[in-house]
């Protein structure tokens, strides 16, 4: 197991060094990139073989249980998918854009991209809360370089905001982690400093007021990274200015990783500070996030910013699910994380293709996609249906379960408010999508750029989302993994 973990972390690192060195041609890099990602995927499958859903792997620095495997699965699926489609994306960008100006840019892109995924996997494998913080900060720094990859004026602006807001937020999380360590010191001594397993087993020994203070800082800190309002100001800028593939990873994988660290901290503090406080805290921020997203979706003109605000809405839903803290809602939240990651990655990729086809981000200038670019239009429509939570896509089931548990919990007012807000998002997004798809084309598209090199992967991700929603009971492994993971969150760890 230890060797597998080292292999998983070592391979992308080696490839990053190869890619930055510049000895290889772009062709070789495209091929190697796919090979490396597939091997890492294979290593992960081998890991799944060795560890059944109920088991844990525990060593000095690494810790794997159902929860981390679930999130790791999300990251790896996106990693493999993005590695396989990145060639067609980069080739198209190269033909018409900034990539052709300087020769070594593709190597730099691959190096940063693999390092980015590497840091995310590292966060998920680590056992120590302090080291998780280090990993999350490292993801911010590397992804900042990816967000600014085009080095245009607006990309620089987005990156500056991203790095300033996120680093300040993450610093607050460090403060919270230090206070948590202080609470641990006063309760149980220096033994196993900040080890997640130790803290989750001895959570009830911690001083309640100190723990509450620590969790407030941690929540604000990682909440900034997840993109909760009112600390979300970096999010639409960063998502819209990053290369589209990276936007998909930022929204699908990075957000999920930050949320994962937040959940890990949540598990520790729940026994001491109780669910009532958590519910209030989470609901305030979550509903604020969803409510802020609605008007921006309705009046949006930039297609990637539209998707960014839709990400905020989904983050809000996940935080609501965590706040309710019943086993149904937490399971639905974890499912929502997976589905949202799959669909958002597809959508950002499609948005990138639309931008390449029409050479504009402005949705008001795109019409008649059904006639001009039928493949792209089909995928865009399906992706949008999926993200809005229509059956048979998986997001329907997770959203339904979260709203259902709100009502079951007796929160009728909040449940109705949530349905009302989601309806607003639905109207806003459908209005924009239908405008883009229908009508007479006023601006000539270059061509339908989706072809056989990337459509299969997008289709697989969409079908995966359907399978995760409708057929989850028929995939025994995933089903038990999800049950175990939500059990870890709700029930804590008893070893």
């Amino acid at each position, binding site marked *: 197991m230890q060797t597998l973990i080292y292999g998983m972390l070592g391979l992308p690192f080696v490839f990053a060094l190869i890619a930055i060195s510049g000895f290889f041609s772009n062709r070789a890099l495209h091929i190697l990139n796919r090979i490396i990602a597939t091997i890492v995927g294979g290593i992960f499958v081998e890991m799944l073989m060795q560890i059944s859903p109920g088991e844990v792997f525990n060593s000095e620095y690494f810790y794997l249980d159902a929860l981390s495997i679930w999130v790791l699965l999300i990251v790896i699926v996106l990693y493999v998918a993005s590695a396989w489609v990145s060639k067609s994306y980069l080739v198209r960008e190269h033909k018409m854009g900034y990539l052709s100006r300087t020769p070594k840019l593709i190597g730099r892109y691959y190096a940063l991209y693999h390092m980015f995924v590497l840091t995310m996997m590292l966060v998920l494998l680590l056992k*120590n809360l302090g080291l998780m913080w280090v990993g999350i900060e490292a993801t911010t720094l590397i992804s900042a370089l990816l967000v600014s990859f085009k080095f245009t004026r607006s990309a620089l602006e987005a990156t500056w905001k991203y790095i300033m807001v996120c680093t300040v937020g993450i610093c607050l999380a460090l403060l919270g982690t230090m206070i948590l360590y202080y609470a641990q010191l006063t309760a149980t001594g220096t033994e196993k400093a900040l080890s997640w397993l130790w803290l989750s087993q001895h959570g009830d020994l911690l001083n309640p007021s100190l723990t509450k203070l620590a969790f407030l800082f941690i929540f604000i800190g990682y909440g900034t990274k997840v993109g909760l309002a009112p600390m979300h100001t970096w999010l639409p800028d960063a998502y819209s200015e990053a290369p589209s593939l990276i936007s998909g990873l930022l929204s699908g994988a990075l957000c999920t990783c930050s949320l994962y660290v937040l959940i890990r901290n949540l598990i520790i503090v729940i026994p001491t500070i109780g669910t009532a406080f958590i519910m209030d805290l989470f609901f305030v921020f979550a509903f604020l996030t969803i409510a802020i997203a609605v008007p921006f979706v309705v009046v949006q003109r930039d297609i990637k910013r539209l998707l960014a605000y839709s990400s905020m809405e989904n983050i809000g839903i996940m935080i609501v699910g965590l706040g309710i803290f019943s086993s149904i809602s937490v399971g639905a939240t974890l499912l929502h994380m997976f589905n949202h990651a799959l669909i958002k990655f597809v959508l950002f990729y499609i948005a990138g293709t639309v931008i390449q086809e029409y050479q504009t981000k402005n949705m008001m200038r795109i019409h008649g996609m059904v006639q001009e670019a039928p493949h792209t239009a089909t995928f865009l429509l399906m992706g949008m249906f999926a993200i809005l939570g229509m059956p048979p896509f998986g997001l329907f089931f997770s959203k339904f379960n979260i709203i259902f548990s709100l009502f079951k919990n007796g929160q009728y007012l909040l449940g109705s408010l949530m349905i009302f807000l989601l309806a607003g998002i639905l109207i806003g997004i459908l209005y924009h999508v239908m405008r883009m798809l229908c009508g007479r084309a006023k601006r000539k598209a270059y061509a339908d750029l989706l072809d056989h090199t990337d459509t299969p992967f997008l289709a697989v991700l969409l079908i995966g989302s359907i399978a995760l929603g409708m057929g989850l009971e028929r995939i025994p492994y995933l089903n038990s993994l999800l049950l175990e993971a939500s059990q870890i969150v709700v029930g804590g760890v008893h070893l």
Partner: protein
Amino acid sequence: MEQLVMVLLFVAFLQNRIMDLRKAVACLCLQSAIIAGACLISGLANGNGLHSVLPGLLTILVKVCLIPYALFRLVGKLTDERELVADINTNYSTALSAFFLMLSYVLVDKMLPGIGDRDIMASSMGLILIGLVLIVMRSRAIMQIIGLMTMENGIYLLGLAMTEGLPTVIELGIFFDVLVAVLVLVILTNRLNVSFMTTDTNVLRRLKG
């Protein structure tokens, strides 16, 4: 230790008054040196060999040598070396910093009553808030980096006072992150200078809605 904290607060307030970029970086360097001193003193007092002085030595290496060096080089490339906000801004930020220092004393007394190092805790909390004030009130990119570092120093000092330092592995990770963060910010500032012909962050206002 008490004297060190007094000097530290003096330096932090001085940071509010300096408008020249070079002097501001020197001031940050001095501030980090004081933190390193505090770290070494507390490490030697605990006294178990290399492990206890390592964070202090690392602070000297990373925050007193490498980071100021990178920032000085950056300032050397810029053509105008002064902060652009109006001079009255210094008065506001100093007043705000003083207010936040008082606030942090109140916070420490309320939240952690009867803790040993009350002055150190309060001043490190004050340092964090002063860093935030600098980030919000200053418009030059380098000044914001300095604010971020001030904040980081404050958190570090708070951790030192509360827990006598985190485990070594985590400390190493944090130092590495801080170093990389400053490197990335220096690269970005360089790019800002190339693309916008200025490092004034007030020009960054195109992305909205």
